[in-house]
């Protein structure tokens, strides 16, 4: 049985999913137009990981579990996102003032994250669980969390996790997504381990003003102390960048059944 977990969640900011993104070329490589002006949210994948971490910490035996959120991103954007996320669950923020660009090199991002995790005071490797979004941090490369785990020499890694259950003997039963809409069930003896979360099963926690008050007493000082660290490009070179092609067609209907609407959408997609 554990004496509680030390759960480190890796997660950063991304533009609000409702925004229209426009890639542009800059002297330092591709970027998103006016990215600093766009509203941001905690990467939805990482957000699930954070909620799962908080849930696990609250249920773990004893009260010695603790959750850290390691975030690499522009300090101003991190601050904006913390105003929302810090109302939801308890955590200690470990911010690094750097790029959260979707064009960052996954190896460089992983190196920075791993180094930051190793520098957390009092972190107990025997109780360490590293959480992150399955595809977060690199915004789709799907490689960053694996690289973080390798740099931390964590051998037990799980990606696309939807459920983590603590067994009576302290081991974990892990459900990972596999093809065909099914799960692969694994058992892991315990920490240290790394979990790249898919969506999990938990609903988004409600806002809790008391949690927010308590979090903010440490979040703002941490942001004020955050070091600015340039992210190496790792020799990465982009030939081009473009958003996914999309076609929009809107009309208002009031007299169609859900089945009819679904059929029409399927036909439209098939064209």
């Amino acid at each position: 049985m554990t004496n509680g977990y030390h759960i480190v969640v890796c997660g950063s900011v991304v533009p609000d999913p409702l925004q229209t993104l426009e890639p542009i070329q800059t002297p330092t490589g591709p970027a998103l137009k006016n990215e600093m002006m766009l509203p941001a949210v905690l990467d939805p994948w990482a957000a699930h990981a954070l909620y799962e971490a908080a849930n696990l910490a609250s249920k773990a035996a004893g009260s010695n579990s603790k959750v850290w959120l390691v975030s690499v991103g522009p300090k101003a954007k991190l601050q904006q996102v913390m105003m929302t996320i810090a109302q939801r669950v308890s955590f200690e923020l470990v911010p690094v003032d750097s790029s959260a660009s979707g064009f960052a090199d996954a190896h460089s991002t992983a190196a920075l994250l791993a180094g930051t995790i190793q520098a957390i005071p009092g972190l107990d490797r025997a109780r360490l669980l590293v959480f992150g979004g399955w595809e977060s941090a690199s915004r789709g490369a799907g490689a960053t969390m694996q690289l973080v785990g390798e740099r931390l020499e964590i051998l037990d890694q799980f990606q696309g996790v939807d459920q983590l259950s603590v067994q009576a003997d302290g081991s974990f039963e892990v459900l990972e997504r596999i093809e065909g809409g099914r799960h692969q069930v694994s058992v892991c003896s315990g920490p240290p381990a790394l979990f790249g979360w898919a969506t999990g099963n938990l609903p988004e926690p409600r806002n809790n003003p008391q949690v927010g008050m308590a979090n903010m007493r440490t979040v703002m000082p941490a942001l004020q102390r955050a070091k600015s660290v340039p992210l190496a490009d790792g020799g990465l070179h982009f030939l081009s960048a473009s958003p996914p092609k999309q076609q929009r067609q809107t009309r208002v209907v009031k007299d169609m059944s859900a089945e009819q609407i679904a059929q029409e959408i399927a036909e439209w997609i098939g064209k």
Partner: protein
Amino acid sequence: MSADSSEPSAAVDLQKIDLPKIDLPKIERQEMNVDIACVGFGPATGGFLTTLSHSLLNPDGSVRLESATSPGLPLQVICYERADGLGFGVSGAVTRARGIRASFPGVDLAEIPMAAAVKREKLVYLLDPTGASRRSFSFKVADRLLRSLGFVFGLKHDAFELPYTPPFIQKHNGLVLSLGQFNQWVSDQVAASGMVQIWPGMPVAEPLIEGEAVAGVRLADQGTDLHGHPEAGFTPGMDLHAALTVVGDGPVGAVGRKIDAQLGKPAGHESREWALGMKMVIELREDSGLEPGTVLHTIGFPEPEIFGFLYVHPDRLASVGIFIPSWFRSPVRTAYRYLQHFMLHPYLWRYLEGGTLKSWGAKSLQESGRHGEPFLAGNGYARIGEGSGSTNVLAGSGVDEAWTTGVQLAEAVIELAGQNRPFSRENLEATYVRRRRESWVDKESKIAADARNGFQQGVVTGMIGMAVAGLTGGRVTPAARSAYRKMSSLEEAYGSRTSPAELKQMQEECAAKGTSLHDRIMDRCGWPQIPMDGKLLISHQDALLMGGGVQASPGYANHVIFRRPELCRACETQLCVEMCSGQAITRGEDAVPAFDREKCVYCGACLWNCAADGDGAQGNIDFKAGAGGLHSALN
């Protein structure tokens, strides 16, 4: 109550109607104590928190203003904003920025994203190029005269650029701002100080009123269905007790309106003059020729009563919008379609053609000015910003005035807390209200108080009244403040263009199909079809998705409630449907409007349009604090 008020008026009866009771389980609400609770984050609260956060500590880092709830710490100040982000405010903002500049000495405010110094300002009269505009005889004569003598007046692109912009609307030395980016920038500065906490995405349901005092606020319940019934994860809204509640939740805010309803307003004060502002932020084509800092004010089109604007930001971005005032009495009052016709006017379209929509939004403006001013302070509370009647209706300016009222309250708080004096009515009147009354905000609002009276009689009368009031410093106002005039019926507004039978037929057909009546009538009356281009001229629903990113968080109850269904069934015009900025309110099956909160942009137009169809004071809609809304920070 405030210094220069007499007896409070009667509370609004409809606000006291008991809505269907929600069968809640026995609730134990969490409670929290702070020193100051702020409701709503806009320019007013921005000014308040900016000023206060600089004064909580001494230069050596010791506590200057000590908390009563957490001894040894500075005042505990917390602010709740219902929108999902602090930069999701909507306003077409060109401002003289006198108060804002004073708060940031030495800071180049043009560094704020999308800010530009005002460089060129014009007042433009737009003629009607469509022949469909509802023009009075005097406007028709003016149009004909200008067209026939166009070579003399310099008529171009169906528009006449006035050679003179009245000083009272000039914004020389001012700033063009994106209010969303400005709010974001201010909140970044304030939050980074670590002195105050600002929480977006958390609606405040109501004030905690104890007798004649406000003792804090109650946050909205979470984990409910659309009707407020508890569901999984039900979390009752917390009671936040505070020595001072700062009400800055705007003109349609639930807390401010509840205080008005329960504690009354100063005798004779009423908020009957409104406008709906709707705007788009457009990325201009590269050769548009518009320079950052360009400001255009327009009159005359798409309807004589509708004013418009175009402000140019840096990086080829422009804010373009219109105001639909409450004294525009046509029941066909769709802001979205009118905005499209406005953009298509030849004078503007030569700039806008080829542009791309980047953002869209709408907002109600409280245009009663001093006549709508509530009690500015009472025991345990103070009102700031637009909801406190600070908007100057003559200058068409509200952001800087709102900011300044927040600064004035902060200065009062610093004075009172520094002397360990309570936030009582008398003390707030002697500090906050006194500062406000002695300031330029109040002096200019007196000049503006009756400037718009003439619009109740007509547009020409109104414009003459504004000009005379502005040029004489408010000493002369040609028109007296008149009694409320009810909205025109469809027959009154369109009887000269179509027959009552045809109107009735259109009404019935639209009701049966659930389609828009205003579109049908505008088509019938000659308004041209909008040539959709998929970039800038897009459907209303596409604007919600592409320009506003509108969404509603699950777990909250509907915030628009139709109090008495029988009144809705008897309502012919259903202005709430016609005026809804997001098409969130539609004609329901049993003639009671249906509300879809996932389309609501929280503009609040339904609230005052419903009232406009009655006696102007009371509506059948309860507009509660709601989560969600626009997700655009460019507005």
